């Protein structure tokens, strides 16, 4: 990876030199910081597809650079600083844990634009963007609730942050709505990417009776574990993971970052970039639902498609009352839609989910 970075920067330096000489102005340089390897088949893979789309769209106008498997913490700050020093104009930092490092480095480089994925801290040169994954989770919950026979749904959770909690709640609400007996077993693995640990967690959930496993981690290991166990259904996470279809993978949430990355790169080129917060879902296509496989009965599939359509048109919000919090206290009244504060900072389970969120 070191070598890759080195070669990229050397190639880049050469490119910049010739480019500047040829047409008198520099290329726009776009950097990406990834939390996992681009070959994870999930989260980072899709971000990298976004990078490739930017290259495709702008060709010689842009220069891209990326660093994979950057730990969330001091290392991230070092990598971002290096990118900024190498002349990046726009840097996408693609994991929640990069939030503070992004803000810190952005303060040192006011002329460089930063875009932080899934966070909530902004600055004049830091935008945030995220996708309404919970819309996809609603679809998964619905299908899972209808498909489970053991009424036990396993959930591999990564870190106790609002985005993950939203996913659990949304999936549970829609599973229990079609199947009141459904029970969620949740395992926190405290990692975004560790195939062995993810496989282990999936196996444990399956051993404890789960016949549907949802994951909020990045690798395809839980899919492989479900396949080996047999009779267990899963959903692709972040990427389609179609190679595990039609079974165990019966549908998926696909993060489509490409249009957003192209739009923001264009804004930097045009000089119209401003700090803002983007939170898009099924409506704009940032969240896509992968093909629902034929293993799913036609009526369930039709219901799921109707649910997707109602979210696309905006007539339905996954967090619509009546809903209670886990302790039974009233939260959303009949027909009431969740407020922005609760949505972004969600740190509680809804009624019916057992266990506690690690604090």
């Amino acid at each position, binding site marked *: 990876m070191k070598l890759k970075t080195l070669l990229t920067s050397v190639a880049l330096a050469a490119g910049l030199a010739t480019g500047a000489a040829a047409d008198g102005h520099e290329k726009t340089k776009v950097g990406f910081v990834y939390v996992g390897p681009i070959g994870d088949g999930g989260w980072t893979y899709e971000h990298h597809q976004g990078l490739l789309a930017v290259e495709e769209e702008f060709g010689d106008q842009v220069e891209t650079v990326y660093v994979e498997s950057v730990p969330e913490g001091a290392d991230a700050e070092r990598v971002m600083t290096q990118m900024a020093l190498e002349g990046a104009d726009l840097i996408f930092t693609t994991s929640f844990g990069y939030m503070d490092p992004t803000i810190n480095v952005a303060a040192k480089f006011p002329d460089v634009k930063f875009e932080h994925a899934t966070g909530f801290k902004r600055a004049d040169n830091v935008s945030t963007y995220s996708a309404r994954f919970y819309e996809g989770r609603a679809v998964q919950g619905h299908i899972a609730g209808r498909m489970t026979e053991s009424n036990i749904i396993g959930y591999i959770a990564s870190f106790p942050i609002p985005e993950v909690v939203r996913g659990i709640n949304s999936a549970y609400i829609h599973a229990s709505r079609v199947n009141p007996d459904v029970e969620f077993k949740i395992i926190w693995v405290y990692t975004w990417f560790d*195939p062995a640990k993810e496989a282990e967690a999936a196996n*444990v959930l399956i051993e*404890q009776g789960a016949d549907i496993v949802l994951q909020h981690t990045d690798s395809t290991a839980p899919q*492989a*574990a479900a396949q080996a166990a047999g009779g267990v259904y899963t959903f692709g996470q972040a990427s389609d993971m179609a*190679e595990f279809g039609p079974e165990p993978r019966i549908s998926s949430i696909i993060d489509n970052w490409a249009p957003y990355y192209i739009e923001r790169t264009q804004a930097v080129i045009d000089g119209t970039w401003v700090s803002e917060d983007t939170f898009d879902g099924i409506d704009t296509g940032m969240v896509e639902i992968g093909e629902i496989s034929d293993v799913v009965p036609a009526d369930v599939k039709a219901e799921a498609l109707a649910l997707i359509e109602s979210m696309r048109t905006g007539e339905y919000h996954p967090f619509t009352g009546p809903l209670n919090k886990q302790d039974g206290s009233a939260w959303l009244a009949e027909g009431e839609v969740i407020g922005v504060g609760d949505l972004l900072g969600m740190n509680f389970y809804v009624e019916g989910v057992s266990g506690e969120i690690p604090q």
Partner: protein
Amino acid sequence: MDLSAINPVLLLASLMVAATPILLAAIGELVVERAGVLNLGVEGMMITGAVCGFVVAVNTGSPWLGFLGAAIGGALLSVLFGVLTQYLLSNQVATGLALTLFGLGVSSLIGQGYIGIKGPEFPDWHIPLLGDIPIIGPIVFQHDPMVYVGLLICLGVWAFLKYSRLGLVLRAVGENHDAAHALGYKVIRIRMAAIMFGGACAGLGGAYLSLVRVPQWTEGMTAGAGWIALAIVVFASWRPGRLLLGAYLFGGVTVLQLNLQAAGLAIPVEYLSMSPYLATIVVLVIMSAGRAPGSLGRIFHASR
């Protein structure tokens, strides 16, 4: 909380599976360190083994050939380390760290075309008679063959170090390489052999992840298992028996904490997550009475 959801038989059975990759990598590193060489590149050799094993297994359709390929791949990478440290006298710590980085990079290069591909089946062995014993059978005697290969290697290393003449020579080289050299033993040749054995074992451990436990190829899939193996060697005070205990303890508590979480135990998840590390360290530190091999990490040159 519903502890009845945990099946103790399945729990103990998955313990052996969870411990195997770490056990394999650690037993190899133990031999290397007993020969006086500190190879911090275990992670790099593991991941290289994981990809080599997967590539060979997919192309030949045989997981056994895959494991063989993994052992060769790991050993080849370790030869690089051996040449640098034993013949060119480079710093072992720095070279080992570089080996890890190199291994991660080279494995993702080799594995480019293998992401998302399914490997060949590697079925569990149902050992006749023994496997039919109630409770004990499913726990101990119904695993895939590599679990037993790992145990056999561990047993072999123990017997080799304790009873064989060559084992004694290897320990002598590790304790005091100058003295061993003075006695006429080929220090560098013995160390190279130990390094290659360590590389082959680490490769097997990595392939166990990519062929059995996960089973698929994903970049960076060892995710730190090599470092755990290194730590277990130290905490086991360089003894095979304790190393086995440490690896099983780590694997066992890892599986147990996942089970407890899924069963909804009312212990904060943070404590459960750290429990494998804590339990392993505490037990092995309490037991530890050993010391490091005398020449561990020191550079040997016959002229000095």
